[in-house]
């Protein structure tokens, strides 16, 4: 099967490409790139315009597919369908499932579940067995079977001594520890950012220091051990400033933030809608401003969604009783294009860098984040000017818990190829909808 993507703006930060050209997919790889490629022997030509982008498939290094254990919220299949609908072809799944991904059989289970989806699903294995913070997992063996990083995400590695050992040990395998930065005692029974709005709304607050004290601790542990930390879902200005300093010192730390921290604030909790509840919480205006600046400066390396599905029943609760988490795979690109590309804060190359190339580099995913002849054909076609309204009922995800519901966004993926297979096409979605 040969598919020719004709006449679009091809953008790839890794190879420094940004020009109007054609791209030929042959079976699972990119066979040719260049101007006016021949259509001889091509099975399908997708004629595009210079206003459409052909980009490397997006990479989300922080998703929860709830597999195994909570197929009511999401499955590997539904999660993957949501991913391709959002332009993603590679995701890293967090290990806080039931049971936890902390052993070889669990890694094999996941990889087996991932295979039929056609996209790259990389397991992040637990740092400690059962996420209990007591005993380290067999990191070397887990890496050999496919783990790309280690994390107890959903909770922190509470003991500094355990984090120290994990950093020392993971360093041998050159894999990062993904840090969910939270001091449980400072977290208390908090349900939203501690600030003006938690006072007004009468809800227990999660102070910013709850995150930043652990960021500070782990930066010191990185300095001491030489291990590598990737900070997950950074939400506060204090954390940004600590990470900025650590990077200036040349310490091996990287960081991600989410589309919701960049575009929403704690003021959004005023209707007590649990779809605005997550951990870390939506923080204040000045936190948001610091995150935006850090993304522009490169202090924040990566956009990740922290896609955390929960059923509508679980979210139909009083705000303080509802579970933490929001989904993001199907809105991430639209939100980022609307708020960063269309506002001129990031150019297309920079945007694709933080949503594809850079996360692939940090998590060492050689088959992702690049458009090159011979590379795996993981590709998204993007119409950056297509306006659409977020309707959770049309989501591929099994869950509906998005804080972006009802928003009109500008730009989205219209086609997604993984290993040369067209797994998502907006056109066929829409024609199906009319059937």
């Amino acid at each position, binding site marked *: 099967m040969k598919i020719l993507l004709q006449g679009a703006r091809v953008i790839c930060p890794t190879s420094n490409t940004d020009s109007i050209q054609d791209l030929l997919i042959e079976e699972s790889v990119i066979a040719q790139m260049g101007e006016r490629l021949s259509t001889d022997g091509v099975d399908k030509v997708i004629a595009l315009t210079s206003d459409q982008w052909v980009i490397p498939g997006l990479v989300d290094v922080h998703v929860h597919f709830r597999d195994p254990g909570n197929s009511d919220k999401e499955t590997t299949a539904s999660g993957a369908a949501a991913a391709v609908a959002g332009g993603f072809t590679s995701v890293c799944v967090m290990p806080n499932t039931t049971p936890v991904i902390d052993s070889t059989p669990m890694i094999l289970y996941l990889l087996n579940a991932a295979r039929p989806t056609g996209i790259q699903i990389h397991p992040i294995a637990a740092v400690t067995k059962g996420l209990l913070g007591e005993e380290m997992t067999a990191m070397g063996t887990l890496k050999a079977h496919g783990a790309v990083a280690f994390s107890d995400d959903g909770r922190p590695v509470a003991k500094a001594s355990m984090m120290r050992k994990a950093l020392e040990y993971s360093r041998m395998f050159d894999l990062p520890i993904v840090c969910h930065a939270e001091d449980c005692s400072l977290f208390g029974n908090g349900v939203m950012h501690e600030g003006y709005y938690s006072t007004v*709304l009468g*809800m227990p607050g999660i102070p910013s220091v709850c995150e930043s004290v652990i960021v500070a601790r782990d930066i010191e542990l990185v300095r001491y051990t030489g291990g590598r930390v990737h900070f997950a879902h950074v939400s506060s200005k204090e954390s940004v400033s600590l990470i900025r300093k650590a990077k200036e010192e040349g310490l091996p730390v990287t960081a991600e933030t989410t589309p919701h921290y960049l575009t929403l604030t704690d003021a959004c909790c005023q209707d*007590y809608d649990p779809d605005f509840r997550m951990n870390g919480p939506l923080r204040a205006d000045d936190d948001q401003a610091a995150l935006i600046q850090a993304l522009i400066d490169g202090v924040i390396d990566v956009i990740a969604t922290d896609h955390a599905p929960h059923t509508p029943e679980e979210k139909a609760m*009083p705000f303080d009783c509802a579970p933490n988490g929001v989904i993001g795979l199907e809105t991430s690109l639209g939100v980022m294009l609307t708020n960063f590309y269309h506002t001129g804060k990031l150019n297309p190359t920079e945007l694709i860098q933080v949503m594809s190339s850079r996360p692939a580099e940090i998590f060492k995913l050689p088959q992702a984040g690049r458009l090159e002849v011979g590379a795996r054909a993981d590709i998204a076609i993007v119409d950056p000017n297509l306006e659409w309204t977020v309707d959770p009922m049309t989501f591929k995800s099994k869950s509906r818990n998005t804080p972006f519901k009802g928003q009109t966004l500008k730009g989205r993926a219209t086609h997604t190829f993984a290993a040369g297979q067209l797994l998502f096409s907006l056109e066929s979605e829409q024609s199906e909808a009319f059937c």
Partner: protein
Amino acid sequence: MTTNASSIPSEGTFNVGDHSSSGAFLLGQNLPLVDPALWKRRHAIDSASFTAQEVQIVLQTARSFGHILSRPIKKVPTLRGKVVVNMFYENSTRTSTSFALAAQYLSADLINFNVSTSSVKKGESLIDTAETLAAMGTDAVVIRHSSSGVCQQLANYFGDRLCILNAGDGYHDHPTQGLLDLLTIQSRLPEISGKKVVIVGDILHSRVARSNIYLLKLFGANVHVVAPATLLPVDIERLGCTAHTKIEEALDGADVVMCLRMQLERQSSGLIPAMSEYTRFYCITKERLKRHCQPNVLLMHPGPMNRGIEIASDVADDLALSLITNQVTNGVAIRMALLYLCLSTPTERSVLLRFQGDSV
């Protein structure tokens, strides 16, 4: 439904719960009346959203309804045929009783629906419960819940289909308490503007403090709060008050002191070291009132009181000083007013104005 206009009290002397020389409603009656037809609300959920005009409508309506409480037969047919359900997911005696009596004095049918908070988590959702009640013909639900925001969530869901009255949600708001406190203060200090009102105690966990700050600010009061630093919420001053940790500074020149209940669990959760230490630094005593406040200072407490902890017994019992029982009486009148305003039609409300005018 047609309101029986004659059911609206137009005369009578109010003296229930009136232990001091001036009754709960005697003053403030000469304030200009606002046309109650301007009332547009179906819900009473958060104090912060009330306009001064809306508050005045509630207060003047409460004043006129208050007279019913002094009658030998405390019943008018105003809300005959209406159904009010008290949904209390948190323990309460005075507020649930107050709402229940308010509904019954107005001849509404009342159901008390008591539920333990735990059943919320494992059982039916609040919306389903309320939907069930609405399907049975309920007109208004009165909700007390430990989770902030549940009334807002219900109002967002039901719109105008069901009247939602907040009887206290989490630490968020307790609008009827704020309104009854305002009515009580206004009965003694008709001009609230510029008066110093000091709220003392656990501000962090207090919906009463939040309601009072918003409503008192609306009428130009100078609101101060005082608590140990661990019981002051972040950015409380942005609500429009001045925060203190030293009781002497807070009480200085106070016209009204509002004392909050100090819960025992604040000690076990590590927010204060000991009740005795709290009492030592924050208990409202005669000596503190006399030394720092205006000579004719007024004392309030939303109840239930911990005598000897946040308030000295002789302060609570001093009728020249304490408005505590007036607060309780006014609470019934305020709740009658809100039930009436939220359940009546604009035409019915415009009829009311005439009678409120007559009662002056």
